[in-house]
């Protein structure tokens, strides 16, 4: 009997967005035409997105990579020996050994791109479920202690220690508690949550199940933004499979734990990424931010104690449980322990996922892994941490990626998104955009945010038109103070960060007579 050659083509939506489905189809037809037996596995993406679609062929030497591949190239490549790992111009080498990948420390993303995301057997073969089994052998309090000791902090932006949050929920005596996964990932420049849900959904399910056990919850929700239809479909499919395996439902893995998990789809509102707004949305309401206290850990979904964590936070927990707090906590620097999944996007040559211990510098990510700009022009500005994060110039490239070091520099690590701009960027336009984005996405509850952002746009327009420039710059400064001090949540509270950093680091762009080209059309619907 002839054994088929295994060929991997990612099913990740980024890979599909540049033709992976067509490549998979072309491989199947070419194999038939050339009389070859192949087995196509739709894996997740390795996160080397500039190489997508990246095709891998299993060879005796390892998985040989070819990319980027166009569907129209496939027939020729097959004729030239693709299925035997032939040395063709598109050949990259054994994928695991590519320096870009080999230099990383993949902890949360260990399996992504390697396995078939919806194969539970693959999941088991690659170390899945070990963390859950170990958790169930320990007491809930021990699991919480392990997560606390690992130093794991929330990956959704604010960096709050996960263990402390869990302890609060564990200590509540209510008979109904929830675990909610924040998969709203609205920040521009971030896509790790999406890739995790599409590339290794069982990991998130396992992490949530461990969380449920640790705090005594019986129901969970994954709130996924509607902009991610592939992640929604994959996560739902994975949940079905997990029920079938006894990883969810009554008596998880034969233990006393009962845990039901549901996917909910958002409505296209950025503010629903804020945790209390997300809870309102899950309750079927407008996503208006709630005042804290009470905190969601005590008074969360439907008024019950609720763990709210980001996708990556929850997906890191199985590893912590499987390998122990110590191993995780040994990675990183200062109070930023473990690894962060950095996401390189925008005008960048080698965009994608870099998972590495905290402490790597911004420059190592942008110039090193990222290889500078895609356009080939010099890097001028880098926005770190999403639309509410600071714009940094090259002079800040020595900054280590570390929550506290970034905060001290008037910036934030946030969800680890890094967006690169070349020298053609107009920083006044970016500052204006930050205000405009806030105006469009504000939940409307408080005046500094709702009205302040609209005023911010107007003031920046006047600065650009050189109307009383100095007075208007002072006014903008005041406005930023009011927004920072007077906003209920970080939407209004942090919008000044990109604005101020643009003025501080790129003052020339706010000089007289500079045009500000960018205009976001007003939204006609959906505004309160």
């Amino acid at each position, binding site marked *: 009997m002839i054994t088929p050659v295994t060929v991997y083509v990612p099913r990740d939506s980024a890979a599909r967005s*540049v033709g992976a489905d067509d490549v998979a189809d072309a491989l199947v037809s070419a194999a038939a035409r050339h009389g070859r037996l192949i087995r196509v596995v739709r894996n997740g993406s390795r996160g080397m997105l500039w190489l997508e679609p990246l095709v891998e062929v299993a060879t005796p030497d390892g998985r040989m990579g070819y990319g980027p591949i166009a569907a129209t190239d496939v027939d020729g490549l097959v004729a030239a020996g693709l299925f035997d790992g032939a040395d063709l111009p598109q050949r990259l080498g054994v994928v695991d050994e590519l320096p870009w990948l080999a230099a990383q420390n993949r902890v949360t993303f260990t399996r992504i791109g390697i396995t078939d995301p919806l194969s539970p057997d693959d999941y088991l073969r690659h170390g899945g479920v070990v963390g859950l089994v170990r958790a169930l052998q320990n007491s809930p309090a021990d699991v919480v202690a392990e997560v606390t000791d690992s130093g794991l902090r929330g990956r959704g932006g604010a960096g709050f220690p996960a263990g402390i949050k869990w302890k609060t929920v564990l200590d509540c005596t209510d008979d109904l508690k929830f675990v909610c996964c924040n998969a709203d990932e*609205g920040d521009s420049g971030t896509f790790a949550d999406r890739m995790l849900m599409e590339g290794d959904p069982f990991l998130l399910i396992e992490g949530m199940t461990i969380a449920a056990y640790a705090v005594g919850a019986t129901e969970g929700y994954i709130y996924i933004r509607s902009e991610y239809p592939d*992640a929604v479909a994959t996560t739902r499919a994975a949940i079905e499979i997990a029920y079938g395996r006894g990883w969810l439902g009554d008596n998880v893995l034969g233990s006393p734990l009962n845990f039901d998990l549901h996917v909910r789809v*958002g409505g296209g*509102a950025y503010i629903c990424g804020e945790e209390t707004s997300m809870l309102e949305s899950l309750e079927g309401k407008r996503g208006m931010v709630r005042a804290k206290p009470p905190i969601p850990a005590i008074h969360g979904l439907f008024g019950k104690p609720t763990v709210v964590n980001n996708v990556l936070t929850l997906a890191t927990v199985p590893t912590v449980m499987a390998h122990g707090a110590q191993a995780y906590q040994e990675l990183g620097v200062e109070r930023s322990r473990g690894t962060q999944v950095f996401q390189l996007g*925008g005008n960048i040559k080698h965009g994608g996922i870099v998972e590495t211990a905290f402490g790597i510098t911004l420059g190592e990510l942008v110039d090193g892994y990222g290889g500078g700009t895609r356009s080939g022009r010099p890097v001028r500005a880098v926005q770190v941490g999403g639309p509410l994060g600071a714009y940094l110039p090259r002079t800040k490239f020595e900054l280590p990626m570390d929550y506290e070091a970034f905060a001290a520099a008037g910036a934030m690590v946030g969800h680890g998104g890094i967006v690169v701009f070349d020298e053609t960027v107009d920083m006044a336009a970016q500052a204006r*955009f930050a205000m405009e984005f806030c105006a469009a996405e504000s939940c409307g509850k408080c005046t500094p945010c709702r009205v302040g952002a609209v005023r911010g746009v107007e003031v920046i327009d006047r600065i650009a038109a050189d109307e009383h420039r100095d007075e208007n710059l002072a006014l903008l400064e005041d406005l930023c103070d009011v927004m920072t001090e007077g906003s209920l949540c970080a939407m209004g509270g942090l919008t000044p960060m990109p604005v101020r950093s643009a003025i501080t680091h790129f003052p020339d762009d706010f000089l007289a007579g500079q045009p500000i080209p960018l205009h976001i059309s007003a939204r006609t619907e959906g505004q309160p």
Partner: protein
Amino acid sequence: MSTALVRDIVATYRGQRGALLPILHAVQEALGYIPPEAIPVLADELNLSRADVHGVVSFYHDFRSAPAGRTTVRICRGEACQAVGAERLVSHVRDACGMSLGETSLDGSLTVEQVFCLGNCALGPAAQVNGRLQGRLDESRLSAILDEAVAQ
């Protein structure tokens, strides 16, 4: 609009906690939009005020009160896509189709909208065409997508 259809959808989701959002998604999936006449029906079925239901429908950018075109193109204007020419795509749509963002063409073939981030920030500029993600777009690829949509 079929009132019975809306009532059927409610019946399917009624058992879920906080079911209004899933119900609205299902109504929009079935009808292409949330007809204003559906609001009193939903209010009645869910024991909410009409203002409550309307408040939810109007809060979320996803829900539309009029049908969209047969093809919906959502162009990403997040910062990462701006850094690689998202605004050029917006201008291109304006010049090539005479359409601004948020508009539906008169023949009902095309709706063009803006969106902020599709999670394809390393392969921008990006857009979503009838729910399907597209990356590394430029004017000519976008034109081809638009032409195909209009031809259908």
